């Protein structure tokens, strides 16, 4: 799977006529673009715009391209933008394995094959054998890792991270952060990270854009 | 009742005509043959659980024996069934009407007869089971509320106004023996007597009983009210009611809605004296645990209202043959015996036991009339029903005086 860079061309997001964010950037595969700013600054809206789930109350313009392919007018489900929020948001009505299997594209057929992928993905985040568990019984760190495994299984073209580490305590945060970035690099995915934590930005190592600063 | 309205309205839009059918009651086998497969819509008062259950039994028998399907259309006032036929006639629906059989007597029969709404010529006396009917000793079978029946309705049961009281609470010696004593009794026992709100037929019947007792000239009641001085004739009645009203249950500000409600009030000991048209009604209620077994009956030695209730077929009935088969079945010794049994209903028969064969007579003799039922010889003399026209006027006047609004 050839991974391509993410390109944002004159993206502007406004709320009731007030421009919140305006930027053009490109993010190479494996690189991280970090957006920092206070809450309400529109940084999460930018993420939503890229992912295609921006609340209709916002008005937005500009192009989102990946590998030369224009995503701007595609619905969310056709963009293949993997998202991680600050909560792991595992589906509470599915087992851990069910959450992961749900993420595997339908094009991958065969019960055996799909089950193997789930197992592999769990091993990849160090949670082998937990497929049958109720997500509510996992620890915070385990949940975060399942969420990561889930998003990776869906064969995304990019990763959108909306303060995904902010709910974790310091030690765990570092572990999970490293795991996420390592996986993104391995899969050569362009990453957009929204955070207000300078440590996150430093660990990401890529471009940092500050939005909403007066 | 709603059905009446809807069907009548529907007929205004869809005037479908069924082919005319000729029925000869004398060729009974042909009638029975024709009836097979018909559905008979029997419009009958549905306010009593035991009567409803009896009709369910009758329906079951009719289906098994004659292939006739009996549907009990429960009406809360027979006048509604009559109005239904009136509406159909007005809409030109002279065939294929929605009412096949009506439980009827008195003013409703008079009204239908007057408006030519009945299947004619007379057919009832040609029914095979007519041979058992006690026409000799029960004059109300051929004269319904002064109106000649002429075979236009078939007798079903006998009614006689009787009173009930609870002997555990009320001393039999204190019971009234006529209308005036009832008033005195009410003065001595305020709030313990009431009657169903007219035009409920039990309530209206009570008014008629008082009218009959208080009117100076009995004969005038047998003729249409238009021919008499209504105010003068009914003056004693309303003078009586004016005195009775404040002495009644709830000070005459509320009335039980019908007989079953009154029965409940006797059970609750809210009322001490109630009355019914069915002499064994109290025994049935005891059997059903609705009344205590200390309830007993009494009647006025001077006489109480008596009448016969009938079934009739409207002129535009659809299932005429089925309706006739049903009427005949209801007249059969077996159906009449079951009807007289307080276990099921307790309604006195219209048949003469002397005309029955031994086997059928045994059916009647085996019936246990119950502790609370007066024997046929204890029921006292019968007072004839007044001409139906009196009732209408009296109900109107009653409503004006005591029943504001509804």
């Amino acid at each position, binding site marked *: 799977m050839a991974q391509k860079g993410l390109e944002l061309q004159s993206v502007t997001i406004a709320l009731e006529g007030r421009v919140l964010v305006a930027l053009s950037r490109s993010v190479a595969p494996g690189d991280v673009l970090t957006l920092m700013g206070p809450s309400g600054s529109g940084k999460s809206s930018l993420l*939503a715009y890229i*992912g295609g*789930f921006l609340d*209709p*109350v916002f008005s937005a313009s500009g192009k989102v391209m990946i590998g030369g392919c224009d995503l701007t007018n595609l*619905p*969310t*489900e056709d*963009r293949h*933008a*993997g*998202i991680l929020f600050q*909560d792991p948001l595992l*589906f509470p*009505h*599915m*087992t851990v394995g069910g959450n992961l299997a*749900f*993420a595997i*594209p339908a094009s991958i057929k065969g019960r055996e094959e799909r089950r193997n992928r789930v197992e592999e993905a769990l091993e990849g985040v160090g949670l082998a054998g937990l497929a049958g568990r*109720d997500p*509510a019984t996992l620890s915070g760190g385990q949940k975060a890792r399942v969420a990561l495994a*889930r*998003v990776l299984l*869906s*064969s995304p073209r990019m990763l959108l991270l909306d303060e995904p580490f902010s709910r974790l305590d310091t030690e765990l945060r570092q572990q999970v952060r490293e795991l996420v970035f390592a996986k993104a690099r391995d899969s050569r995915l362009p990453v957009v990270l929204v955070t207000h934590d300078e440590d996150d930005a430093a660990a990401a190592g890529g471009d940092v854009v500050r939005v909403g600063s007066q | *009742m*709603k*059905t009446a*309205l*809807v069907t*009548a*309205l*529907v007929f*205004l*839009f869809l005037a479908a005509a069924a082919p005319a059918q000729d029925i000869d009651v004398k060729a009974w086998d042909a009638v029975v043959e024709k009836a097979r497969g018909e559905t008979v819509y029997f419009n009958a008062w549905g306010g009593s*659980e035991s009567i*409803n259950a009896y009709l*369910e039994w009758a329906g079951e028998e009719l289906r098994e024996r004659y292939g006739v399907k009996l549907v009990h259309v429960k009406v809360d006032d027979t006048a509604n069934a009559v*109005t239904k036929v009136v509406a159909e006639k007005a809409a030109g629906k002279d065939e294929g009407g929605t009412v096949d059989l009506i439980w009827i007597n008195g003013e409703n029969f008079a009204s239908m007869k007057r408006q030519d709404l009945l299947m004619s010529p007379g057919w009832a006396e040609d029914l095979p089971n007519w041979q058992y009917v006690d026409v000799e000793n029960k004059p109300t079978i051929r004269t319904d509320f002064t109106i000649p029946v002429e075979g236009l309705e078939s007798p079903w049961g006998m009614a006689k106004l009787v009173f009930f009281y609870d002997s555990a609470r009320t001393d039999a010696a204190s019971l009234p023996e006529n209308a005036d004593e009832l008033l005195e009794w009410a003065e001595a026992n305020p709030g313990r007597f009431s009657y169903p709100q007219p035009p409920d037929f039990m309530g209206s019947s009570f008014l008629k009983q008082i009218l009959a007792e208080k009117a100076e000239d009995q004969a005038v009641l047998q003729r249409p009210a238009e021919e008499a001085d209504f105010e003068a004739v009914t003056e004693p009645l309303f003078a009586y009611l004016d005195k009775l009203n404040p002495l009644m249950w*709830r000070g005459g500000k*509320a*009335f039980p*809605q*019908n007989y*079953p*409600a009154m029965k*409940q*009030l006797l*059970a*609750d*000991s*809210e009322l001490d004296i109630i009355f019914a048209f069915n002499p064994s009604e109290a025994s049935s209620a005891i059997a059903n*645990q*609705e009344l*205590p077994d200390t309830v007993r009956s009494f009647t006025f030695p001077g006489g109480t209202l008596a009448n016969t209730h009938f079934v009739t077929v409207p002129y535009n009935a659809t299932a005429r043959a089925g309706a006739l088969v049903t009427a005949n079945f209801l007249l059969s010794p077996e159906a009449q015996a079951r009807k007289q049994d307080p276990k099921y209903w307790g309604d006195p028969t219209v048949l003469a036991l002397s005309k029955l064969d031994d086997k059928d007579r045994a059916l009647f003799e085996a019936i246990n009339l119950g502790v609370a039922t007066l024997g046929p010889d204890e029921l006292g003399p019968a007072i004839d029903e007044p001409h139906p026209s009196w009732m209408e006027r009296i109900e109107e006047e009653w409503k004006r005086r005591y*029943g*504001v*609004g*509804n």
Partner: protein
Amino acid sequence: MLTRLAPSLAMLLLAGPILLGLTGTLLPAFGYLPALGGMHPTGEYLARLLQEPAIFHSALMSFAAGLITAAVSLTVVMLFVGGWAGTRLFSRVLHLVSPLLSVPHAAAAFGLAFLVAPSGMIARFISPELTGWTRPPDVLILHDAMGLTMMAGLVIKEIPFLFLVTLAALPQIRLAETRALAASLGYGRVAGFLFGLWPQLYPQIRLAVFAVVAFSSSVVDVATILGPTSPAPLAVRLLGWMNDPDLSMRYLASAGAMLQLIVTAAALGAWTLVERICAALRDSFAAAGKRLRRDHAIRIAAFAAMTLSATVVIAGLGTLAVWSVAGLWQFPHALPKDFTLKSWIAAGPRILSPLTTTLVVAFFSTLLAVALTLLCLAREDEKGRKVRRGTMLLFYLPLLVPQAAFLFGLQLFFILTNSAASIVALVFAHFIFVMPYVFLSLSDPWRAFDRRYDAIAAGLGKGAWVRLLRVRLPMLTRAILTAAAVGFAVSIGQYLPTVLIGAGRLTTITSEAVALASGGNRRVIGVYAFLQMVLPALGFLVATLVPALLFRRFRAMRV
């Protein structure tokens, strides 16, 4: 596509029948009903209506019932929420009261009747020991001329309704903070609530209060069971005329329905006046700095009124249940001499057909309402904004327009299209009243759903339908089933739509029960009213058990 059509479809299905029905009611009121030969507009029937004995008395009683019921229920709820919100006792009372919402009005009214009648349960319990009564006192309690018992019967049912509506609005105001602030300024609990929070809360529940005014001023079933008879409240008399087999009475009934519309509108108008007066009073008290620090008595009274109303319903239902299995039961015995299943066995075969109709109609009207509600809510998400006030009003419309005023005309329409008394027509008529409740109870949990789950699923490449069916609906199973149970209960409780659209040929447990009211056979009424109460309860049981079983392995899916 489907979701885009949903709001218009809902509008069509709710406003359509109401407008159509109102037209069908108003035209005959002015003498226009071609089917019966009425071709020329005439004021004759309105004149005849005004000639009816005691018609103004009836109208006035309906008007007063609307205002008094709403005022009493709202006052109790307001003072109770003001005095107790946030306490442990509050949540206890909540658990006591909320199931009562599902009890049909008619069942609650029968229960009350069996309780407070002179020969009722209360008199039996205290007699003869406390009262010396060996027989019931001769006092007019049921069907009293002032309609007090009828209003009491309405109040005990409207309190749970207003309480739960208020509760739903409570999270939108800052209860704890404002209370602390008011307390720090020296205001009593109730005063702090009334001055600081009620003005924000009331607008949110205002439509529900209007619905109470409208319903109580036009109710038929409760009025039949408990209301005055000479004369009866307006709506009861209307139904009598409507049911008259003499077709020409239809004109009079339509004219009466128009009067009902005016009475209800007047009651609503008067209510807005009451609102203003109360607001002015409140403001002047607040401006005068009345702190009501010693509000203990008010709080206790509100608590007592609240529990009393719930207890009355529960005790009434219990009495009904006992009557349904009672053998001989004379006054003043507190229990029957013996018990028997006779009433149940006798009613059994006769109940089957109305029971089937009840269940079928409730099931399909609820199904339709839930499906349409989900589509409307999904459309709301697509457009990204909450429904506007106008749309909200639309959902409340069937609860604000008196039922009689548009059901008469709607029945006529069904007759004209030859679909009266069909199960489809009945389902549709019930749907009109089920839909508002389903929408109101489902919209909050739907909006509270964390939309990020949706974003995640979309990010995983899942289309809208997959997201709806595999993520949102399963996660909202409990809320959906609860809303469905509410809808189911509403359908079971419907009286007038059943009587008018079912036209006597399709009967339900409720229409049969009310029809039995005049017969006074307490055992049979007990059977029907007991079923009336059990069916909605079964609905809620299913709504609780199914998700519990379905998701028994998932801790976060439990409440």
